[in-house]
Structure formats: structure tokens, C-alpha cells
């Protein structure tokens, strides 16, 4: 099990929140797990999508922490479209704040290169944490 300080986001959680914010910016404020996994893989240019267990465990943690809102869509909508019901997520205000804080602390902690720019965070990994 991954250990971390209270209130600190894990790299995968930062990536998930970033992907969620990016989807919201693209006009999709609510997204399902697969859409998030696809957005993550696209952003990281990875061939493999995040594993089911890793993805949904992390989403559950973020929802429990209040960084994501989760709701089940109307079963009638899913039935009309001939597919299983989706669980829809949305990045909350506190999720956006936690992401911004995490990015700020990463920038602060990152080693500074010779030209004075902070080192970039590595691209999110598609393999499970």
C-alpha cells in the first residue's frame, strides 16, 4: 500500500485531477472512468490504459477525499443507448485547489536547471501505481 502524508496527492491522483480539469476545459465537466483513462493515456502518449483496479481505487480515494463528485447516471439514459450505466465524476472546487497546491509544491521542490527553469514533472505513467 502506498504511504503518504495527509492531504498530499499521489502522482496518479494528480494526473487524474489534471485530466479531469483538462476534460472540463474541453467542455466535458462530467466524465466516466474510461474517458479519464483515455485522456490520461493520450496526455502521456502511452499505449496502455491505466489498469482497472488502479484507476477505480484512485477515483474512489479522490471521491472520498471530496476532490471529485461522483454520481450514477440515470439508468433510463443508459438503457436507451444500449449500454451499462456510467458513474460520472466531476472535479470539485477543493479538488482544483488541491491540484493547484500540489503543482505549486512540485514546482517549488523541483530541482532548478542551469537556465533557471524548474524541472518538469515526468509524464503520467499508464502502468498501475
Amino acid at each position: 500500500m502506498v504511504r503518504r502524508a495527509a492531504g498530499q496527492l499521489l502522482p496518479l491522483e494528480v494526473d487524474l485531477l489534471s485530466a479531469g480539469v483538462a476534460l472540463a476545459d474541453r467542455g466535458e465537466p462530467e466524465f466516466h472512468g474510461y474517458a479519464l483513462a483515455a485522456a490520461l493515456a493520450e496526455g502521456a502518449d502511452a499505449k496502455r490504459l491505466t489498469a482497472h483496479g488502479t484507476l477505480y481505487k484512485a477515483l474512489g480515494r479522490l471521491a472520498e477525499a471530496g476532490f471529485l463528485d461522483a454520481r450514477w447516471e440515470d439508468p433510463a439514459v443508459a438503457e436507451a443507448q444500449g449500454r451499462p450505466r456510467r458513474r460520472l465524476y466531476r472535479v470539485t472546487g477543493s479538488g482544483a485547489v488541491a491540484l493547484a497546491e500540489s503543482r505549486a509544491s512540485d514546482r517549488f521542490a523541483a530541482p532548478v536547471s542551469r537556465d533557471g527553469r524548474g524541472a518538469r514533472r515526468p509524464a503520467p505513467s499508464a502502468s498501475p501505481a
Partner: protein
Amino acid sequence: MTTSQIRGRLAGDRLAQRWTQLYTSRLGAEVALERRDEIASDVHEHVAASAAAGRSRAATSRALAARMLLGIPADLSWRRHRLRGLHRAEKEKAMARHSSELADRLASAASFVVLGWIVLIGVVSGIASSRDGRPTDWVSVTLVVGLLGIAVAGLVRLLRGHAEAAYLLAVVALGSTFCFLWIPVIPLVGLVVAGSLITYGVTARRPPAEQVAG
């Protein structure tokens, strides 16, 4: 060919669904159903996206199997976490049930003590007055019979599950010990019995914490 037709043939899909059935077993119906629905939805979207991108069925099946296999450690850790929560809730429920049963038994015992005490007062004062050849003290008889009636009524109500009857019995316990104010230990015992009956009445009438929170 529709997504559901493609899905029906994918080994990776079947594998993911069976694994989900397995690791969500004995976790409670709601938790299990939600996780199974979430994985079913993910697999459906994955297959649909792969079909739209023109990927082969074999490649999609392999990708699904890989996502399932690589997620096993996280699934098992999630299951452990859920099971721990489930066990903790069951343990707390059992403890609450146990303490409630104990309180019921104690309240019944205290009620019987009160009842026995009043009967004893009546018998002792009856024997004393007949031995001394004194005329019957009708005030004391009325008091004892009245207290006895209230105690019986309180006990019956308490045994039928009316917790507020404990207050009635507490009043009787205090009232009956007033006859023996010159022996300090008796009012003290009466106070303890009345106190425990009042405590029982208050706690038994209070709704459980989870109901208040909910």
C-alpha cells in the same frame, strides 16, 4: 456489428467480468454491484472506442486482459480495505446490541429489586403491628399498596419495551426508601437504584448515533 456483439466474443471482457465478480464477493450487495457496474461500463466504453479506432478484436481483448491483470494488486488492496470497514461495522453493531441487552437485563433486575423492597416493607410493617397489638396503620397500608401498584404497572410497561416506565420505577424506589431515612444505607441504595433506572430510561429512549447522523 454492434459493440455488444463484439463484446460477447472477447475473452478479455469475460476475464475482467469474472475477476470483478470474484473480488467483490462478500463485500455487501451495494458495494459489489457498484464496482461491477463501473467495470462493466469501462469495458463497454473500451470496446466501443477500440472498435471505432479500427483495432482488432484480439488486440482489444489483450488490452482488456492486461488492464485487468495489472490492476489485481490494487483490486485486492481495495477489497481488504472494504472488508476491514465491513468487519468494523459488524463489530460495532454487535457491541451496541450486547450493551443494549445488558442494560435491559439490569433495568429488569432493578425493577424486581424495587418490587421486592416494597413487598418487604409491607410484610415487615404488617408483622410488627400485629405483634405489638397496634391497630392497623391504614396510611402505611395505602402507601405500600399504592407504591406496589405503581411498581407492578411500571415493571409490566418496562418488560413490554416502554423505556419511560423506568422513570416511574425510579420514583417508586425513592418514595419507598423515604420510610427508612433514619438508616442511611437504605436511602443510599434507593438513590443508586433510582439513578440506574433513570440512566437506563434516558439512554434507551435516545436514538442510535447513526440514525441521528443520517
